């Protein structure tokens, strides 16, 4: 028997979704770890943010991989969703999806698009001003304009204190992220072929913990900064 085809198969396509998903989940964990520092030590948060914001390897090696992963994961997900709709031309008059699969697994497009919409707001809030300061104004110092201390913690606090609408949007987005991860975490393992009776229950449990605790951590930080600073 000889090999019939060398192109990217439907399994290759789902493996690519899984690999970019793994990288994005790793990034979420790293992002949360740094953000949590803002609650416990503004100075440490400033220093670590400055390091991550100016380190050559992180800025020019990891950041491009991250941007690629985000764009690829969304674009590829939409493409696969389009292909999947083409695979059933006539729809069912009655389709009981809830009888055999979770809402999360059936609606990754909805939760994914909600996270995408959130990313637009998040980039507007943080990433675009950061890139503007560093690369368009050439200010790599990480200092405030008046030179009194570093800017990162204050910038973070400013976004949430006195901003109930923004906090609400962030909270909503973290809930959607949680729903996305509740399916995505364990699904990524299945896609790369990892499924066995001994470890799959552990992976599912870890996936549920990750999907709840990581968004909860982000949610806590947003609410903390909203509440802790006087209104």
């Amino acid at each position, binding site marked *: 028997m000889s090999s019939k085809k060398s192109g990217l198969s439907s399994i290759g396509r789902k493996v690519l979704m899984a690999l970019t998903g793994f990288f994005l989940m790793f990034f979420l964990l790293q992002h949360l770890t740094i953000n949590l520092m803002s609650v416990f030590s503004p100075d440490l948060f400033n220093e670590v943010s400055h390091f991550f914001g100016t380190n050559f390897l992180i800025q020019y090696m990891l950041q491009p991989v991250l941007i690629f992963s985000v764009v690829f994961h969304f674009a590829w997900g939409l493409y696969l969703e389009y292909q999947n709709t083409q695979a059933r031309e006539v729809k069912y008059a009655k389709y009981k999806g809830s009888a055999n699969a979770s809402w999360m697994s059936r609606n990754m497009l909805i939760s994914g698009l909600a996270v995408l919409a959130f990313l637009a707001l998040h980039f507007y809030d943080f990433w675009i001003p950061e890139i503007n300061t560093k690369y368009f104004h050439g200010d790599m110092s990480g200092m405030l304009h008046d030179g009194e201390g570093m800017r990162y913690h204050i910038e973070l606090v400013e976004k949430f204190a006195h901003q109930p609408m923004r906090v609400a949007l962030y909270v909503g987005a973290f809930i959607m992220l949680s729903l996305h991860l509740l399916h995505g975490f364990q699904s990524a393992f299945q896609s790369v072929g990892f499924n*066995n009776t001994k470890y799959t229950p552990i992976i599912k449990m870890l996936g549920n913990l990750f999907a709840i605790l990581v968004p909860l951590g982000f949610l806590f930080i947003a609410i903390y900064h909203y509440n802790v600073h006087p209104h």
Partner: protein
Amino acid sequence: MNLTLKIWRQKSANVKGKMVDYKVADISEHMSFLEMMDVLNEQLVNGGEEPVSFDHDCREGICGSCSMFINGEAHGPVKNTTTCQLHMRSFNDGDTIYIEPFRAKAFPVIKDLVVDRSSFDRIQHAGGFISVNTSGNTQDANATAIPKHDADLSMDAAACIGCGACVATCKNSSAMLFTGAKISQYALLPQGKVEAKDRAQNMVAQMDEEGFGNCTNTGACEVECPKGISLSNIARMNRELLSGSILG
């Protein structure tokens, strides 16, 4: 019991179909779903109408012929059950029951509830076999020792009857549970190792060519499969394909 049936009627592959309402009366709860369909068809024939076409053969849950998407689920509401083994006691008097063909681009409707599932045959032809010396000196299969655990998993995978419920129920019309089972039943046995490298690649390539959708791991196929085929077979197929294509 008295029932209202909403059934997909389509004269042939190339004409448009539609849902049509029928009433059936005095249905016994002990009838199988297909016997209830027989009652309807007798009623239609006696009334000079065209009976509803549907696939069936053994009527004991092992041939994989019967299909039907009943009230939004492949083979109806009872788990691990084919339509022929589904009984009317699973329904209530006065119910309205939707009966549709298994829907997928790769399963075109031939007539009414009958769909063409030959795409499954072509996937099987692409690699679902082993090479055996048939010159008369064929080695006794039992001469090769196989761990019980592997033999059991292989038999579980081989329990797939190829009915297509996995495709019908999947929101993406993916055939990965079927293909995963057919690859696994050989991958788990020493007799299947000879063609292992190409088998997964060839069968998956054929599956893609037939126009099935991509798997998004919802797990609906496993729940609706009348033979309880496990999702672990899809993961094994992924491993087989990746090791075959990466290691060459």
